[in-house]
């Protein structure tokens, strides 16, 4: 241990001992980043209204109250439906756009790319109000289709950014080779290009799904009634009082997100 402290940490000859404060500070910041989220998990199994940590008595009552509530169940179903549909709409559109811009190499491709990523730069609250206004005009407020359209706008740029950056390192002459051997343009894309950017496409699709699933503000304005999303109901519950059921829902959401990300990672590993 002592020897480790005196060993240089980098080639600039600073020792691990002199770096201790940095290690401590870095560790504290990492703790600050992960602890609050992780601590919710055991707390959700607490029997108390005040969510003790560590729980004095363990119980599943908050999970029961979640699964027994028709309102929470319907909201969960809406969220999954909206996220799946958003993913199914934004991913093909985003991939097609990214591929089209990359392959055509026209002069204004850059400008179109900027246009496609503008939703990332528009303040979310302003877009939420705008979407609400549009859907109110179309009498589509509180409809699943309206929510999916609005969420697709937010998901689209993420797909475009991820797929475009994967295409940057892709060599189009492979597709030309396939076509000179008799493959159609479509076949060349699906058999040669797509398999090589598959990881980016899956990542983009996952991002699209999570964007819709986690989104609060647009859902708050646009969804409601039968089609209220899980996050909308959670947000409303938070504004009133601290309902421990939300700890149970939060835990489940953390599990969903982590599982999806782990799957994407595994998928990426098997690719490479």
């Amino acid at each position, binding site marked *: 241990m002592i020897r480790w402290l005196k060993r240089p940490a980098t080639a600039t000859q600073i020792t691990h001992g002199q770096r201790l404060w940095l290690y401590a500070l870095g560790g504290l910041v990492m703790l600050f980043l992960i602890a609050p*989220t992780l601590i919710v998990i055991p707390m959700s199994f607490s029997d108390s209204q005040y969510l003790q940590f560590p729980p004095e008595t363990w119980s599943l009552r908050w999970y029961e109250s979640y699964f027994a509530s028709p309102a929470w169940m319907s909201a969960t179903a809406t969220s999954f439906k909206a996220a799946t549909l958003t993913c199914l709409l934004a991913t093909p559109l*985003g991939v097609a756009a990214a591929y089209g811009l990359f392959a055509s190499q026209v002069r204004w491709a850059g400008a*179109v790319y900027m246009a496609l990523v503008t939703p990332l730069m528009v*303040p979310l609250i302003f877009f939420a109000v*705008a979407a609400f206004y549009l859907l109110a005009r179309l009498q589509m407020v509180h409809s699943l289709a309206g929510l999916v359209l609005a969420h697709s*706008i937010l998901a689209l740029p993420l797909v475009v950014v*991820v797929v475009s950056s994967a295409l940057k390192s892709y060599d189009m002459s492979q597709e030309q080779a396939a076509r000179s051997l008799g493959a159609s343009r479509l076949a060349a894309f699906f058999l040669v290009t797509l398999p090589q950017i598959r990881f980016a496409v899956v990542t983009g699709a996952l991002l699209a799904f999570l964007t819709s699933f986690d989104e609060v503000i647009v859902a708050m304005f646009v969804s409601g009634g039968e089609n209220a999303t899980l*996050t909308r109901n959670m947000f409303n519950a938070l*504004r009133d009082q601290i309902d421990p059921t939300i700890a149970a829902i939060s835990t489940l959401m953390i599990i969903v997100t982590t599982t999806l990300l782990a799957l994407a990672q595994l998928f990426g590993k098997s690719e490479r």
Partner: protein
Amino acid sequence: MADAAAPSTGPARPHARTLRRDARLEQLALFGLASPALILLLAVLALPVGWLFYLSFIGNDGGFSLQHYERMVDSKSYARIFRTTFEVSLITTGLCILLGYPLAYLLSQLPKRMAALCLLAVLLPFWTSLLVRTYAWLVLLQRRGLINEWGMSLGLWSEPLALVHNLSGTLIGMVHIMLPFMILPLYGSMRAIPADLLNASANLGARPSETFRHVFLPLSMPGLFAGSLLVFVLCLGFYVTPAVLGGGKVIMVSMRIATDIELFVNWGAASALGVVLLVLTLGLLYGASRFLSLDRVLGGGSR
């Protein structure tokens, strides 16, 4: 491409034009692949935003008027909201630099495998739902929450502190949410600094602290700038966390927009605020894009 195959001389010359036209048509068809996405953007983003832009110039009597913008300049309550928004955004950005820089620096110095492991601590919250993280802080910071109980049982303070439903709660929550947006671009730019430069500096007799100050710090500035800009811009339009953790005491522009719609159904006022927010955001991003590639900012934290 097809026109590369077209010989410019000899008997094939008449084909050259046809080939070129084919190439251009193909280019156009490929470009057309982007059109469904563009149409969606025009219909669902550009159209209603343009509409609101128009509404912001329509007064309550239905004619053209600047009253919604004039009110922003005249009214004290609006001035306070803008000041709060800027203050909260600036403090959050500052705190993120203070906490994020050391961690990003540490991560960039660790061996790759170890760094990837530690980076999980940044990515896990980055991917976790905003609402879940805000809720976690609400639970931890409340009067009978974990922080107060531990603080009192350790004898640090005797009365439960009001940690949430005020400015401090808002700041804690916002720093927690924004920190990954600071660390990720920062880490990326630090990793890109060649170790040779640091070695050369040490070789020339600089002490580690001098190497850091004169070589590493200046080279990490673009990343720091990108991260700070991203955090600041995201803070300006932030809604969820201040709404939940601020307890109505910290009113930011975004919250005023929401109440203008939900409570007063005043589209003009909400639109005018939204336009100001949008112009501020785009202006900052545009200004910054002249110093660094925007792609890098957006790619750094793609959420």
